[in-house]
């Protein structure tokens, strides 16, 4: 079957004027100024095919070019180079309820919106009742929509979107709005669209939604495709790309071409306040870090992988059979995990002054996505707690996960559905 959407070598750049010429006067006074424009390449040679009936996710960070790609496909921007083919009728939803006129009733707005999206006047009128019913606004259909609640407006916008017969739908994070009940309705609608066999291109940050709905996905980074394939694999890649940078030196976020996407997550907000330390000076914890499944140091641990916590202890005096361990806390200060040689290794050995030892705790990463802090500790053996050195929140890591739950852990499970 021929692809529903075929994009070949699409490129798009925007002018970034170093000195913006805003008026004819400036243009006349400084005729050469405009030639110093720089161009920002939002999309570079992007090619992909989407099969009919496929639910295709386009993911990427702010400024990665995904919105630009959508707008090129939607016919809002003209691409500089390359070509795209769409098989069938296309509808793009960059935002819900664009072009709503607050002084008109729902019915008039439906008509205007439908005509704008390309329906004929008769088609629009024929669908009005259906749209109002779908949005559940029968009681309010004669009310000016400026008196609607935001939820009602979103419902109306979504209802219109759902009733434009399009073979190919382009959707840009419209689900990011509305309350939980409405989001559920959107997701139901998504499932319906998918079951009807329509082709959907879905642009989002929400990896959970991508994994739930998309058959395939594509990851854009700096205007180029860096991964394409099964949505789970692309999701993992997205998290890797996203958090690799977060862990590295803080970098200026790339310019977002429309400034309408949400701000990038602020890593510094998660830093602990003043890490406290309890020590008697006989030994000190010099360094602590997390390791990924390959055993290399990492600031981000994928959920479900085998990873490790490690710390280096330097002894200043001789200590016999100390206890080594650490506790792991999430960003809500809940202790989710504690490990200690107290339960595994009765006699850890005798260490002399100047000795250095690395202890490593290997564990299965069953934790939910989010930031975690490790407090490593060395203590004297015996009853009661006598710390040799304990460094509060000495190391931190991010657990990356495509599922977002409110629970502290996300352990493997199976669910059986048995008809009663």
């Amino acid at each position, binding site marked *: 079957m021929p692809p529903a959407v075929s994009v070949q070598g699409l490129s798009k750049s*925007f002018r970034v004027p170093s000195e913006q010429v*805003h008026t004819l006067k400036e243009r006349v006074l400084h005729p050469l100024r405009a030639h110093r424009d720089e161009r920002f390449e939002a999309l570079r040679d992007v090619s992909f095919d989407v099969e009919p009936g496929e639910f295709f996710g386009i993911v990427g960070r702010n400024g990665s070019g995904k919105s630009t790609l959508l707008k*090129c496909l*939607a*016919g809002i*921007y003209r691409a500089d180079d390359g070509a795209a083919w769409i098989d069938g009728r296309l509808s793009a939803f*960059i935002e819900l309820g664009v072009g709503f006129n607050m002084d008109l009733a729902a019915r008039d707005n439906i008509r205007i919106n439908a*005509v704008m999206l390309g329906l004929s006047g008769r088609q629009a009128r024929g669908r009005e009742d259906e749209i109002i019913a779908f949005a559940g606004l029968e009681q309010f259909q004669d009310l000016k929509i400026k008196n609607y609640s935001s939820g009602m407006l979103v419902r109306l916008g979504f209802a219109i979107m759902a009733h434009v017969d399009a073979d190919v739908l382009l959707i840009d994070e419209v689900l990011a709005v509305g309350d939980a009940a409405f989001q559920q309705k959107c997701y139901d609608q998504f499932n319906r669209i998918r079951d009807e066999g329509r082709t959907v291109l879905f642009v989002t940050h929400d990896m959970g939604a991508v994994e739930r709905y998309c058959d395939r996905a594509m990851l854009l980074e700096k205007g180029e495709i860096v991964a394409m394939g099964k949505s789970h694999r692309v999701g993992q890649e997205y998290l890797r790309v996203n958090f690799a940078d977060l862990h590295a030196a803080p970098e200026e976020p790339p310019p977002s071409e429309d400034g309408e996407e949400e701000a990038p997550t602020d890593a510094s907000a998660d830093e602990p306040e003043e890490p406290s330390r309890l020590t008697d000076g006989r030994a000190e914890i010099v360094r602590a870090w997390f390791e990924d499944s390959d055993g290399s140091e990492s600031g981000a641990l994928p959920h479900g992988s085998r990873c490790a916590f490690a710390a280096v202890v330097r002894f200043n005096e001789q200590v016999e059979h100390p206890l080594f361990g650490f506790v792991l806390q999430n960003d809500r200060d809940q202790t989710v995990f504690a490990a200690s040689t107290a339960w595994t290794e009765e006699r850890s050995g005798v260490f002399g002054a100047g000795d250095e030892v690395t202890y490593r705790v290997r564990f299965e990463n069953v934790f939910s996505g989010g930031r975690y802090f490790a407090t490593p500790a060395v203590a004297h053996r015996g009853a009661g707690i006598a710390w040799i050195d304990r460094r509060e929140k000495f190391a931190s890591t991010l657990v990356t996960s495509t599922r977002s739950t409110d629970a502290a852990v996300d352990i493997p499970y199976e669910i059986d559905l048995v008809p009663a």
Partner: protein
Amino acid sequence: MTTTNAPGRPLSGPTALGGDPRRFLRLTWTLAVTNFKLRFYGSALGYLWQLMRPLLLFGVLYVVFTQFVRLGGDIHDYPVVLLTGIVLFTFISEATSTGVSSIVANEALIRKVEFPRMAIPCSVVLTALFNLGLNMVAVVVFAVISGVDLHSSIIQLPVIVGALVAFVLGIVLFTSAMYVKYRDVQPIWDVILQMLFYGTPVLYPIEVVQDDFPRAAEWIVTLNPFAAIVQQMRHAAIDPTADSAAVAAGGWGHLALTGLITLAILGGGLLVFRRRAPYVAEEL
């Protein structure tokens, strides 16, 4: 991957008219009707307010130019001529001042929905045309009261209004596209609009100029399409004894030049808008 087996239609990006002219017309009509309805929505006196502007201007000018400065004293049906001129000028002023900023004012729409871009400035002109129709009703009532006879030459009305719309549409297309990039187009246009008002025999009859500067009067009508339109309107609809546009311009050759200027304005506006339309979304 080859381009030959690609199905469906290739994407061309946004254009002035879009692929489907019916969609363009439908959208222009819907937008214009909506704007027109909104003006009167929830206001019982809406029509009166709509009339207020030209009527007030008319009242002031009428008193000034018949009582203090006796400009229109010996002109046949001067009040009707004056009111007609003012109503026509109100159309230009309304269409162009809304039109200049129309693309920018609809930024949200343009950046987020694909539709024929030209529908926006065209709908502005169409809304102004609806208002012109309403105002004309008042002019007709006034003319009947003043005892203006109906002449067969009234059938020229659609042609005259057509020329006026072509003139205004050209200006609106040009200025709205330019305003996206150059924000001083608006003040510049305001000045030109003032010049157009005084450069047109609206508050002074063309005879005043003809008496003292016969050549100047001819050039005013030749070079200013609006002057020719106003003059022809007066000749065809109110007073057949007044000079027609062709006579006032100094012959058919001159009037042909006026026609060319009008077409050049319309053509230029269309051309500029068509060239800018694909990029307005990113330049906003």
